[in-house]
C-alpha cells in the first residue's frame, strides 16, 4: 500500500488508494475479529492465534513472531477504524497530500506491527516506527507552534523509549532467556526480584510516557494542539493506547513480582493523572487542550485500572482504551472540522454553533455525552467495569483511590458541559461565522462511522468484553502471586 501511494501521481489517485487501502485494512480487521470469535467459540483455546515466526536477527534471538489474542484483536480493530475514518477526516489536507499519507500510513504500520507482534524487540522497533512519522506529521502539517510541539513530543517519547530499551534489555538478560518472545519469557518467569524492582519502573515509565502518565504527560496538550486532525485522531485514539498495552503486556506480564509490590507508587501517580487531568481541563480555553487534558485523565484511568490487577478492572482498562480511542478520535475530528471553518479553537470566540452547523454541533454533543460516560455509549461500560473491578480490591488504600478516581465522572461532566454550553448554544457572536457551512459528505461520513461504533459498543458490550476477558485472564493468572 505504501508502494501504491508512492506511485500515485495526483490527489485523486492518492485519495482512491487511501480509501481502498484503509477499507481493505478495516475489512481485514473485521474479518480477523469475526474469525477470532468463531475460532474461540469453536473451542480453540490457545492463548495466541494465528501465530507465526521468522528469524530476524539470530545473534540476539530477535524474531519477527506474530500472534494475536483477544486484546490485540480489539486493538487492531480500533486502529483500523481510526485509520479508516482518519483518511476521510484529512480529505483536503494541504500541502503535499502524498507525503502526508505516506507518513500517515507508516505511522499506522508501526501501530499494527506493535499490536500483532509477540516479540519484545520487534515491538520496540514498531514503537519507534510509529514515533518518527509523528514528528514530521506534526512539524510539517501541524498548526500553531508546531516545531516546538513536534520536538517536545518526540524528545519526551524518545526519552521514554530510552527507558524502555533498558527495561527490555534488562528483562532479556535478567531472565537469561534465549528468546525475545514475550510468552516464552513469561512462562519462564525467573527474573530475579531485585532486577525486577529496577526494570519494572523503567519499562512502566517508558510506556507510561506514551500513556500520558503524570508527570510525563505534558507533551500531550502541545502535541495534540499542533497536530493536524487525522494525526490527532490517530495519536490520541491509538498511539496513546500503545502505552497502556505495553505496560500490561511487557511490564506487568513479565515482571509480576515487582508489579505487585510497586503498583502502589504508580497507582498514586495514575490517580493524580485522572483527577488532575480532569481539573486542568476545566480551566482551559483551547478546545484541543481541553481534550488533551481529558485524554490525560481517561488514559490515566486505563493505567489505573491495569494496576488494580483484577480480572474485571483489566477488562475495563482494555474497554476504556477502545472506548477512549473512538471517543477522542471523534472529538478531534469534530474539533478539526470546526477549526477548519472558524479558524479558531478558542472557546471564548465561539458561540452558537448549533445554529450555524447543526450536524457538527449535534456530533459534538454526542461526543461530549459519550465522554462523560452516558449509558448507551462506550464510555459508560468502560468506566463502570473499571470502577467495579477496582472496588474488588479489598483494602483501604485501593478503596480510597478508587473513590477519588470516581470523582472524575463529575469533573468530566463539568468541563464537557461547560464547553458545550459555551460554544454550541446561544446566539452566534461572530458575524463572519454565520456564513459558514455545515459538514460536507466526507466529514459526515467520518462522524457517523465513529458515533455508530461508540454506540454499538455501548449498547451491546457483551461480545467485546467476552473477547477481552480471555486475553486478560492469562496475564492476570501470571500476576497472581
Amino acid at each position, binding site marked *: 500500500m505504501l508502494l501504491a501511494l508512492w506511485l500515485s501521481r495526483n490527489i485523486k489517485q492518492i485519495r482512491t488508494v487511501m480509501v481502498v487501502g484503509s477499507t481493505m485494512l478495516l475489512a481485514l480487521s473485521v474479518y480477523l475479529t469475526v474469525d477470532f470469535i468463531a475460532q474461540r467459540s469453536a473451542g480453540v483455546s490457545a492463548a495466541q492465534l494465528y501465530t507465526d515466526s521468522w528469524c530476524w536477527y539470530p545473534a540476539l534471538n530477535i524474531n519477527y513472531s506474530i500472534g494475536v489474542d483477544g486484546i490485540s484483536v480489539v486493538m487492531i480493530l480500533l486502529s483500523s477504524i481510526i485509520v479508516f475514518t482518519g483518511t476521510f477526516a484529512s480529505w483536503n489536507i494541504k500541502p503535499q497530500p502524498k507525503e502526508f499519507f505516506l507518513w500517515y500510513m507508516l505511522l499506522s504500520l508501526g501501530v499494527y506491527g506493535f499490536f500483532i507482534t509477540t516479540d519484545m524487540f520487534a515491538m520496540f522497533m514498531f514503537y519507534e516506527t510509529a514515533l518518527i512519522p509523528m514528528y514530521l506529521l506534526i512539524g510539517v502539517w501541524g498548526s500553531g507552534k508546531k516545531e516546538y510541539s513536534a520536538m*517536545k513530543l518526540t*524528545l*519526551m517519547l524518545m526519552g521514554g523509549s530510552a527507558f524502555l530499551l533498558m527495561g527490555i534489555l534488562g528483562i532479556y538478560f535478567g531472565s537469561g532467556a534465549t528468546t525475545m518472545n514475550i510468552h516464552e519469557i513469561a512462562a519462564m518467569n525467573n527474573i530475579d526480584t531485585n532486577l525486577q524492582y529496577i526494570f519494572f519502573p523503567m519499562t512502566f515509565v517508558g510506556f507510561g510516557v506514551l500513556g500520558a502518565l503524570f*508527570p510525563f504527560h*505534558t*507533551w500531550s496538550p502541545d502535541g495534540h494542539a499542533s497536530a493536524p486532525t487525522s494525526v490527532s485522531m490517530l495519536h490520541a485514539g491509538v498511539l496513546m493506547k500503545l502505552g497502556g498495552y505495553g505496560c500490561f503486556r511487557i511490564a506487568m506480564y513479565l515482571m509480576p513480582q515487582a508489579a505487585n509490590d510497586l503498583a502502589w507508587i504508580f497507582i498514586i501517580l495514575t490517580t493524580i493523572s485522572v483527577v*488532575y487531568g480532569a*481539573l*486542568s481541563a*476545566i*480551566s*482551559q480555553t483551547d478546545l484541543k487542550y481541553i481534550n488533551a487534558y481529558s485524554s490525560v485523565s481517561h488514559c490515566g484511568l486505563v493505567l489505573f485500572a491495569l494496576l488494580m490487577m*483484577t*480480572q*474485571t478492572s483489566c477488562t475495563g482498562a482494555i474497554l476504556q482504551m477502545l472506548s477512549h480511542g473512538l471517543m477522542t478520535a471523534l472529538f478531534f475530528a469534530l474539533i478539526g472540522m470546526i477549526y477548519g471553518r472558524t479558524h479558531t479553537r478558542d472557546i471564548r470566540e465561539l458561540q*452558537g454553533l*448549533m*445554529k450555524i452547523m447543526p450536524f457538527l454541533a449535534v456530533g459534538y454533543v454526542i461526543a461530549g*455525552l459519550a465522554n*462523560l*460516560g*452516558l*449509558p*448507551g455509549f462506550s464510555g*459508560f*461500560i468502560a468506566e*463502570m*467495569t473499571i*470502577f*467495579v*473491578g477496582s*472496588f*474488588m480490591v*479489598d483494602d483501604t488504600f485501593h478503596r480510597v483511590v*478508587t*473513590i477519588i478516581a*470516581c*470523582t472524575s*465522572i*463529575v469533573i468530566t*461532566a*463539568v468541563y464537557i*458541559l*461547560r464547553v458545550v*454550553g459555551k460554544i*454550541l*448554544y*446561544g*446566539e452566534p457572536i461572530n458575524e463572519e461565522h454565520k456564513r459558514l457551512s455545515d459538514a460536507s459528505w466526507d466529514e459526515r461520513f467520518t462522524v457517523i462511522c465513529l458515533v455508530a461504533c461508540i454506540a454499538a459498543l455501548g449498547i451491546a*458490550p*457483551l461480545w467485546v*468484553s*467476552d473477547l477481552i*476477558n480471555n486475553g486478560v485472564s492469562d496475564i492476570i493468572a501470571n500476576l497472581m502471586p
Partner: protein
Amino acid sequence: MEQLDFTILILALPLICFVVLGLCGMKMSHKVAGLLGSITLAGVTLLSYATAAIYFGAGRNMDGIYQTITPYNIKWLPLGETLSIDMGIMLDPISVMMLIVISTVSLMVHIYSLGYMKGEKGFQRYYAYLSLFTFSMLGLVVATNIFQMYVFWELVGVSSYLLIGFYYTKPAAIAASKKAFIVTRFADLFFLIGILLYGFYTGTYSFTPGEAVLISAGAVIPIALGLMFVGGAGKSAMFPLHIWLPDAMEGPTPVSALIHAATMVVAGVYLVARMFPIFIDFAPETLHIIAYVGAFTALYAAIVACVQTDIKRVLAFSTISQIAFMMVALGVCTSTDPHEGGLGYMASMFHLFTHAMFKGLLFLGAGAIIHAVHSNEKCHMGGLRKYMPITHITFLIACLAIAGIPPFSGFFSKDEILVACYSYSTMMGIFMSIVAALTAFYMFRLYYLIFWGKSHYEEQLSQYNAGTLDKKPHKPHEAPATMTIPLIILAVITLFAGFIPFGHFVSSNGHLYDIHLDWNVATISVVLAISGIFMATIMYIKGNSPITNAINHNMSNIIEAAYHRFYMDELWLFVTKRIIFNCISRPIAWFDRHIIDGTMDMLATVTQKIGDVVRPIQSGNVQSYSMWFLGGALVILTALIVFA
C-alpha cells in the same frame, strides 16, 4: 406469566420513536412528528394499563401478596465471576403503579404539547427528547437490579438536561440545564459508590440479595444505602441538593410538568421505596435520617414558596416540599407491618400517585396561563378567571387537592402521611401538619394572584386607551382544545383518585391493607388547611391588602432572605466557582503549564546549554585537536610513570 411478554413493547415503543424522530425528524412536518410521538405514547399507555389489569387481575398468591414477575432478564455486561449488569423488566406493585403514573402523565404532556409547542422551532427534536425521557423513565421503574436503575437514572438525567436546555439560545436555559446535570451528577457519584459497596459486599446487584449476605455484610449496608439515598436526594431535590430544580423551570412548561413535577423527581422516592425491605431490616437509622432530611426540606421549600413571584418557581418549591413529604413518609416507617409503623410506605406511594396527577395538572395549568399572558411573573397576571374559565376551574381543583381539602385526592394521601408521622412521634406529626398548612397558604396565594385581583390586561388596556401606552396589550385567551383536554382529564383523576383503595394494591408487606381515615388527624389537617386558605384569602384576594403590606413591612428581612432561597444558590456558587474553579482548577492548570512542563522544558534547555558548552571542544580546528591530544598523552604518561 407468559401473557406479560408484551411488556417489552412498553420500553421498545418509545425507544423506536426516539430513534425515528431523532434520525429523520427534521424531514417530517411538525404535525407528523407530534402525532407520531403522541400515538406511540397512547400505545404505551394502553399497554401499561393492560399490564396493570393483568398483573393485579391475576390475584394474590398463597401468601396473600402479589407475586413479583420478571418477564425479561438478560445479562448485559458481565463484571467478574458473580457480578453482572442485567437488563430486564420486573413487575411488582410499585413498578406497575409507576408505569401507570408515568404513561398517563406523559401521554397528557404529549397531547398538551401539540398545542403548547405549536410552531416552535425544533418541534420534532422536542418530541424526540420526550420519547427518550419516557423510555428511560419507564426503564428506570421496571429495573430488575440496582445497576440497571443507575443506567436509566443517568439516561433520565441526560434527557432532563436536553429538555431544560431546549431553548438553547437562551442563556438562562443553558445555565440551568448545565446546573441540573452537574448537581445531579454530583449526587450520582455517591449513588455509584453506594452501588459499588452494595455490590461488593452482597455479591449481587439485585434488590433481594438474601438475608444471609446482608447480615454478613453488617455495618456496610447502612452506609451503602445512605450513599444511594444521596443519589436519590439529588434527583428528588432534597436540601441541600435542591438548587437545580427551581432553575430547571427554564425548560418548556410541559416538560416541567412531566419531568420536574410528576415523574423524574420522584425517582429518589422510588429508589428508597425499592430498597425499603433492606432499609427497614438492616438500616432503620438511615431511614430515620431520611425522615429528618425530608422534614427539613419540606419546611424550607414551603417557606421559600410563600414569597416567590415567578409562578413556575412557586410550583417548583411546592414540588420540592411535596416530594419531601413522601420521603418523610418512608422515613418514619418502623416496621413492615402497615398496621404497626409501616403505614408510611403505602402513604408515600399513594401521595406519589396523587401528587403526580395534581402537580402535573398545576404545571399544565400554569403553562396555559403563561401561554396566554406570555410571562411567568405574577405581576403580569391577575383577574384571569374571566378569560380562562377551564384553566381556572381545573387549577382550583388542583389547589384544593394539594391543600388537602376533602374529597380531593391530596387529602387522602396527605392524611395517611400525617397519620404515619404522628405514629412515629408527635413532634414529627405537628411539624408536618404545620408544613401542610403552609402548603395551603402558598398555593392559594398563587391562585388568588393569578385568577383574582386586578387584571393586568385591563390595567394596560385602560392605559392604552388613555394614551400612556403605545402598544395595544395582548388579550389573554383560553388555551386550545389540545391543551384543555389534558387539563380536564387530569382534573377528573384528581377528583376521584382519592377513592382508589390504594392499600389493596400497594402496602409495605404486600398484604392487603384497608385505608381508613384517622378522624383526629384528618380534622386537624383540614382545619389547618382551611386556616391557611383563609389567611391567603384575606391577604391576597384583592391584590395588596393592608395586612399584606404590614407583614411585608415588618418582616422584610425574612421575606428578602426567603425570596433569595436563603442564599443557598450563592453558597453553592461560592463553593464551585470561587473554590473549585479559581482555587483548584486554575492553579492546577498553571502548575501544569509552568512547573511540570517547565521542568521538561528546563531539561531540554539544560541539555542545549551543556551542548553549547561542550561544542567549542569540537571546533574542527586541527591545531587545537593536536594540542588536546598532546596534553592528554602527557597526562597519561605522567600518570603511568607516577603510579608505576
